[in-house]
Structure formats: C-alpha cells, structure tokens
C-alpha cells in the first residue's frame, strides 16, 4: 500500500509553480531521495507533503496516515536559534502528539527524551541552550526530535548539509535504522554518492519531475543534465498553465 500518492500535484507560491504536474506514489517503507539543483522545488515538495503548503493544483493523499503521523526535519535556517530554549525542551517538543497543549511531561516521557538525546550522541547536552550548539550538534538535536515523534512517515529537508563526515555517518545510520523499522523516509539531498550508495529510490526534480524510480536507473548523466538545465524563470506575465495531467511515474 502507498504511504503517499501524488495526483497531478502543482506546488508553488503566488500562482508561480515551484514543482508542477507530479504524479506517482511512494510505497510504505520506501527510502526515497529527492534530488535536484537549488530552486528545483525539493523543499517545496516536502512542505507540501507535510501540509505546510497547500497544492495550487492536484492533490497529495497520505495513504490513510494521520497528518500527525509525519515527522518533518526542516532546514536549520528555519529555526530561531537565539530563542532561549534548552536541548531537552526543544527535543521534548517532539512529544506534542502525546502531550498537546496541557499534557504533562511525566517521568516516562522525560526518560524518552533523555534516551532520544543519548541516541544521537548528545549525552550531557540536555541543559545547553540551542544557540550554543554547533551546526552538526543542532542537526543531531533535530534528529533526536524526529526519533521522539515515532512517526511512520519521515520527511527530511537537506539533513546532511554543512555537517562533518562523522556526524553524517551517525545520522545516516539513524535514517537506515528507520528504514529497517519499516518507516517511509523521504530526504532532499545533494550528495549523489550518498544517494547512489544508500537510497534505493530517487526522484529527480527540476521544478517538475525529470525521472523517478530505482536509483540505479534514475541517476544517469542524461537525467542529471536535464535537471541542471532547469529553467529558473519566474515570470509575472506568464500565461496560465494549460498542460494536462502529465504522468511522471506509473501509479
């Protein structure tokens, strides 16, 4: 059964598409890399999946999943790290689904939070304000929150950007662990070697789907060249899109 189903999805801002006419589905338990140049629409697509952005056209179905069964790891730049919040409290926000507005954080929940922090190698950092962490440490904190969310669909927006090899290896192991547990994982990535070696399925985006399927078939020089030649036009006087449903992958 599919975890995600895209039907002629167009996502964008102010009527300008960032990704258009995406069709296809992501199987439950799949490990999918979303690749493409800057501005290709990777983050926009992920925002559409987690419900932050409504499609301009078409629809995204979550295959019976509740929206709260999704864990989303945003790019670090979206987070205000000057806010005075400790690592413990920040990771603890991952328990929102259980705690909500008023639910208490009891002993069991505190243990869960501490375990998640320990799982990403940040023992002893619990009381540190997030503003004092390095980029790699902050990324570990974000992974700890995803761990705590215990979601069946995990959406990661450029999770390995600007972090060292050791941190990348540790966090990649977590991604593979989630995949091993049968969770569906989608990650926007730039490292082609990592995609080739660790992700079974790849979607190449360039403001629209270029190719989607098994990584070995999709990650070809031809497809990458098409993606690199992507048109970045953003034209206020453009005519309304007349394209029909353009299937990008057999559903």
């Amino acid at each position, binding site marked *: 059964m599919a975890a995600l189903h895209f039907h002629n999805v167009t996502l964008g801002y102010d009527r300008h598409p960032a990704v258009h006419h995406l069709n296809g589905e992501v199987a439950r338990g799949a490990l999918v890399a979303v690749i493409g140049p800057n501005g290709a629409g990777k983050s926009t697509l992920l925002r559409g999946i987690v*419900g932050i952005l409504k499609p301009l056209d078409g629809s995204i179905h979550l295959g019976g999943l509740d929206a709260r069964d999704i864990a989303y790891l945003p790019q670090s730049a979206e*987070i205000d790290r000057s*806010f*005075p919040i400790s690592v413990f409290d920040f990771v603890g*926000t991952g328990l929102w689904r259980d705690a909500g507005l008023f639910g208490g954080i009891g002993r069991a929940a505190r243990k869960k939070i501490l375990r998640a922090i320990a799982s990403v190698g940040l023992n002893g950092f619990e009381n540190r304000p997030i503003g004092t962490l390095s980029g790699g440490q902050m990324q570990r904190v974000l992974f700890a*929150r995803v761990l705590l969310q215990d979601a069946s669909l995990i959406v990661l927006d450029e999770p390995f950007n600007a972090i060292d090899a050791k941190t990348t290896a540790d966090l990649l192991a977590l991604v593979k662990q989630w995949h091993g547990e049968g969770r569906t994982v989608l990650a926007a990535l730039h490292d082609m070697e990592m995609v080739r070696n660790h992700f079974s399925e790849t979607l190449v985006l360039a403001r629209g789907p270029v190719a989607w399927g098994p990584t070995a078939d999709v990650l070809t020089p031809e497809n990458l060249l098409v993606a690199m030649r992507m048109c970045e036009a953003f034209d206020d006087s453009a005519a309304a899109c007349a394209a029909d449903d353009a299937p990008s992958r057999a559903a």
Partner: protein
Amino acid sequence: MLYDALIGPFTEFEFMRRALAAVIALALAGAPIGVFLMLRRMSLVGDAMAHAILPGAAIGFLLSGLNLFAMTAGGLIAGFAVAILAGVVARSTGLKEDASLATFYLASLALGVTIVSIKGTNIDLLHVLFGNILAMDDQTLLVVAFNATVTLLVLAVIYRPLVIESVDPLFLRTVSRAGGPAHLAFLALVVINLVNGFQALGTLLAVGLMILPAGIARFWSRDLTAMICIAVIAAAVSGYAGLVLSFQTRVPSGPAVILVATVLYIVSVLFGRVGGIVRQLFPGRHLEA
C-alpha cells in the same frame, strides 16, 4: 527616616497602596508579554500597537470616562483594525509589513489625539497620553487586576504553541494548528496589557513596563522561565521605586516608573551576566571545556 521614605507613603496614603497594587498587577501580566514580544522580535510592533489603539481607547474613554472595559474594547477593535489593514495593504501591494504598519499606526495616533482634543479637554489628552497612576480608584484597580488575571490564564493556555511557534514555526505547523490562534491570542494580550497600562503610564509609555523589563532580563539569563521571572521582578521593582520617586520628588508617576526601569536597564547592559559590557571587557580566564 528610611521607613518614612520607602514604606511610609504606602502605609499613610490609600492612593499609594492602590498605585502599588496596580503596578504589581501590571508587572505580573505585562512583563511576560514583553519577554515574548522581544523574543519574537516584535518590540517595536508593541510600541506601534500602543499608538494604534489610541483612537479606540479614546472613544471608549470619552463615552464612559476612565472605564477600562470600554477602553479595552475600543483599543482591541482599533488595534486589530490597524493590524488587519496594515496586513491587507502589505499583501496586496508588495509594501513591506513594517512600513505599512508604520503608516497606519501614525494615522491612528493622529486620529486618536484629534478625537480627544475635539471632544475632551487638554487634561483628558494629557491623561490619555501620560496616565496618572496616583488617581486610580478601586473600580479601575479591580479592572487592572482582572485584565492581569485574564492575561496570565490565557498565556498559560497558549504558552506551549507560543514558544514552539517562536523557535520553530514550521515544526508547529506540521503537528498542530494552534500556531495561528496562539499568535492572535497573543496579539490580543498585547493590546489588553497596553490598555491596562493606559491609566498608569499613558498611551506613550504603556509599552515601557513590558519591553524594558524584558530587555533587562535578557542580560541576566538564557533560560525562558528565568527570564520571565526576572522581567516580572524588574517591572515590580521599577513600579515600586518609581512610585516612591514620584511621591518624594513630584516627578509624574508614569515617567518616574519608566525612568527607574531605564536605570535598571543601563545597569544590566553594563554588568549583566549574559553579554553585559563589563563581562565582555573582563571575561576572566577561559575555561577548560
């Protein structure tokens, strides 16, 4: 001697006791709101809103006198009208939201002063602009206390979404729809507390007892709970010391309270544990880890 100067005014005069109770209520509710205004980078939005709510509060004031319910209702309507109009103009024209808000709050301030000038007296105008906490009656004090209580209760309800929305708004949007309502409720609390500060400090200084204590707290802690506690204490101390200063020197009470808060702010800028100037100049020997 010291007793006469610091305690005497409050044991001797009922109006001083009422004023003290009012500044403590304002400190308890306004300072936490100020901390969130500052952390959400909305300090100047708070200042702009203080001016924007003037016409509504002025109409309430002229219709019902110093009835804080009427002033709060008028202030809320004017505040939201300005916020919404500024937002609509910004989104439909491409003008930046701060520029749009600046235009509307200035127009609103001018309209408010005009209403009070035409319909009221100069004393009314001075009262609205600068307040007079020493003239507070029992009924007004009760309204101030009621507004403060409502503020603390609502803040308790929206605390979690407000914190998460401040630090990681995208995350909150993926797990809950509470972010939007929490932001609106927070704006309403800002307006309620600005109107609450009218009687004590006037429209021009009402935001002072919210923002200055928050600024002070930022220099002493990196923890949100501690910051809120420090801000409340700083606001209450400023209120008390400002009242004593006003009583002893005949300086108007509103400016006296804000001037004391300013002194505390300068001390914090110089000697604060977190980023204070002296601490930066003489940081001590570096640590091992």
